């Protein structure tokens, strides 16, 4: 029957595609409110849900020692009541606008994201401004957020991917670095946080003069200047605080840490080190090379580990900026860094063979380099998907806010596409080989040590230690 089907269908040659239509990453309009708040706005026709991203300059390394997690609790507490609404009323008012408001703290600073249908943008901006300008930080709500955070920690540690991430940070960074400790704090540090600590952190860091608002969506029918003047424009605060940025260093001596999970049916892998951030000239070539290594199902890692061997549902290589600093006026670049990593999970019984294949992929890459065809497909994909990737207001706002947070020019992403297209095979090979050197990677495995430790030791990818899961 299938033969009959095949026989009667008319086949045609593969179509070659038409001429690409021009598309460019949107250029935002940059301005400043009278209170010093920087505003980036970007009109995206048809995008009815407006995305607002607020960058607050409150890096995690400014948290007081022993109070790690206070930035997270403060971020969450912004929406727990203001000078106009109780916590419950505030949540209700937001939802009445059809809005969502999320806030989280990360190494470079705090991000607050509002999404709201354009018809209710002024109302949504008003609530956002209240949260930033006059958070109430009531004792009872802070106590609840602290208790809630303490309850979340066991859930996170039980999750193999989260557990691997926490362990890698602890291994990679020196104990005195904030980056070695969980972004959202530990049980010990969270327990010590109260409303006074939250307010002190707010007073020390949150102010319009060091904040940026990125507003993206269909702004055609909106008097944004008026809406901003009435809302975020009413926020006041002191001058920027002085601060120094500690350098990021990581110990990438090749080694393996197994977080023991007796009975686990899979081993979660996270293999990483630190490397260049977006300020580095190597960035486009590194993006390209990393994609060829493990960007998708047809990249080198999955071609073997998934599509040939069936060891995994998918393994990815990626670079994620940890924190950047402004480039020095002398042209010395940024003192920032990225986490460069390979992550995925493999069946317990094939953990040894899967890691062996993974290392073979890395060594072969170093010995033979990327092919031109591989490089070309990667460029076509990374550049070609841009209009898809940036269809929504939220995607555009997220990238613009990342650029602000990383002290990059507003046209960084737009220029990146041209630079990707210019990066050659040799450069991409050099970048990815130097990003993922086979002998300088820290490997974290969350899995059943009794079944995986011996095969992993036999691989010779570094000293193997086992910690209790």
């Amino acid at each position, binding site marked *: 029957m299938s033969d009959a089907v095949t026989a009667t269908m008319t086949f045609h040659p593969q179509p070659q595609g038409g001429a690409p239509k021009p598309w460019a990453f949107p250029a935002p309009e940059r301005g400043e409110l009278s209170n010093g708040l920087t505003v980036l706005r970007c009109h995206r026709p048809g995008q009815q849900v407006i995305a607002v991203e607020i960058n607050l300059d409150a890096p995690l390394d400014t948290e007081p020692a022993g109070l790690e997690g206070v930035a997270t609790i403060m971020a969450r507490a912004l929406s727990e009541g203001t000078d106009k609404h109780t916590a419950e009323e505030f949540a209700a008012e937001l939802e009445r606008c059809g809005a969502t408001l999320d806030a989280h703290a990360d190494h470079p600073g705090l991000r607050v994201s509002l999404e709201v249908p354009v018809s209710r943008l002024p109302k949504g901006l008003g609530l956002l401004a209240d949260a930033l300008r006059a958070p109430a930080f009531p004792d009872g709500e802070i106590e609840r957020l602290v208790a809630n955070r303490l309850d979340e920690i066991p*859930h996170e540690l039980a999750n193999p991917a989260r557990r691997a991430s926490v362990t890698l940070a602890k291994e990679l960074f020196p104990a005195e670095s904030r980056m070695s400790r969980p972004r959202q704090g530990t049980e010990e540090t969270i327990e010590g946080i109260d409303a006074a600590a939250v307010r002190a952190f707010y007073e020390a860091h949150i102010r319009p003069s060091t904040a940026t608002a990125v507003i993206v969506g269909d702004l055609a029918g909106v008097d944004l200047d008026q809406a901003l003047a009435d809302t975020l424009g009413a926020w006041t605060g002191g001058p920027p605080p002085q601060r120094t940025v500690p350098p990021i260093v990581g110990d990438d001596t090749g080694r393996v840490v197994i977080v023991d999970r007796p009975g686990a049916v899979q081993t979660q892998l996270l293999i990483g080190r630190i490397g260049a951030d977006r300020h580095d000239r190597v960035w486009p070539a590194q993006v390209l090379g990393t994609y060829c290594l493990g960007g998708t199902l047809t990249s080198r890692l999955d071609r073997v580990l998934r599509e040939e061997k069936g060891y995994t549902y998918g393994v990815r290589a990626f670079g994620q900026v940890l924190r950047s600093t402004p480039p020095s006026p002398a042209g010395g670049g940024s003192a920032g860094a990225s986490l460069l990593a390979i992550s995925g999970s493999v069946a317990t019984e094939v953990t040894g063979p899967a890691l062996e294949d993974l290392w073979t992929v890395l060594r072969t890459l170093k010995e033979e380099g990327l092919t031109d065809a591989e490089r070309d497909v990667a460029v076509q994909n990374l550049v070609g998907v841009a209009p898809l990737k940036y269809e929504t207001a939220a995607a555009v706002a997220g990238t613009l806010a990342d650029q602000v947070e990383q002290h990059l020019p507003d046209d960084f992403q737009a220029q990146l596409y041209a630079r990707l297209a210019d990066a050659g095979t040799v450069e991409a090979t050099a970048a990815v080989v130097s990003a993922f050197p086979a002998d300088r990677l820290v490997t974290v495995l969350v899995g059943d040590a009794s079944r995986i430790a011996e095969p992993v030791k036999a691989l010779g990818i570094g000293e193997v230690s086992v910690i209790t899961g």
Partner: protein
Amino acid sequence: MPMGHTATQQAGSGGLKATEHRLANGLRVVLSEDHLTPVAALCLWYDVGSRHEVKGRTGLAHLFEHLMFQGSSQVTGNGHFELVQGAGGSLNGTTSFERTNYFETMPAHQVELALWLEADRMGSLLTALDEESLENQRDVVKNERRQRYDNVPYGTAFEKLIAMAYPEDHPYHHTPIGSMADLDAASLEDAREFFRTYYAPNNAVLSIVGDIDPEQTLAWIEKYFGTIPSHEGKRPPRDGTLPDVIGGQLREVVEEEVPARALMAAYRLPHDGTREADAADLALTVLGGGESSRLHNRLVRRDRTAVAAGFGLLRLAGAPSLGWLDVKTSGGVEVPGIEAAVDEELARFAAEGPTPQEMERAQAQIEREWLDRLATVGGRADELCRFSVLFGDPQLALTAVNRVLDITAEEVRAVAAARLRPDNRAVLVYEPVQGADAADDTDQTDAAEAADTDAEGEAAQ
């Protein structure tokens, strides 16, 4: 009486118009133009899902979906992925209870390539399908099952709830991922037979949304799909009809190595496509959607007995939909107290119904969720396919929000009173144990997400 919430301009049909076409071989086509961005999405829904599977072959629809990416007559190996990604497109496929969908979002000038690829596998998959692909993808899918369900805390909760809420031998008794034993048992002949039975132009809907020239697009569709023969081999799914209520409380206690106690429950709800299903959506939103919901306010804010508390809705057309309650307890809190509080809130809601403010908030939330779905060409293409395949009319996608906004508070109260009752639920209680006795480990996944299972997993970043 209207509750004061009015749709924003785009929420109704404002941004979306669709035309319908049908090829001689029965392939239904839906086109929708939007020239704002030079991209177009192609979405192909086959009217087959895990509900069509038979005993002993659970997971076959999803395993088969993976095989659709392993090449066809003119596409070698991973060519489907390579060609789409090389053209600057993105792609995937997913399998749920009621359908299998395949989608590509392309730069506008590459739509023809995606059509050629989809037609090639619709018409000629079996010429390329071999034992090697099957063995490989069987292992990939088993690892998908381990990664998403078996190796995470509470990961199999959804599967357990489904198995209780839909009785043995019911077509929805098992989830799309299937069991390890059945995945092991699937043969090449099973896969071939599955293709011959369900993969035909007259069992599919193709939608294309975005920066397209409709005439040119239709001509391409005719060219590539027009000669694929139709056939009537499809077996209809087994009847999914069930009584409106379970008629008793089902209960299972799971002792596993999980981080905290949990109370979960599945309530049997009206079929998708009815006013009652939209009313149920509003009821679950008021009770357990977001940070101002009754259960969040009661359990997380006031009683402080829970870390998280909420309701999810799994809309199903061929069987009763499912409302999924998920409460993770705080510290050492015991489940009975939480269960009593939930019952109290549900009973009060069934008696009093939502307040006007709650109706307004719930409708605003659901409206924004719709706007989010429709903000991308891919989201729109998927909705047009959904309403075509499940309800026979893509135009219903254009008015879906208005139907939700039309529901009254009394309808919301009535559906809650009829369905959100202790004798209409399957309850799953997690009791943590230490170490070796534990079978599984967790993650918090919403109902809709857990029901979908896709070809290319995104590794966590």
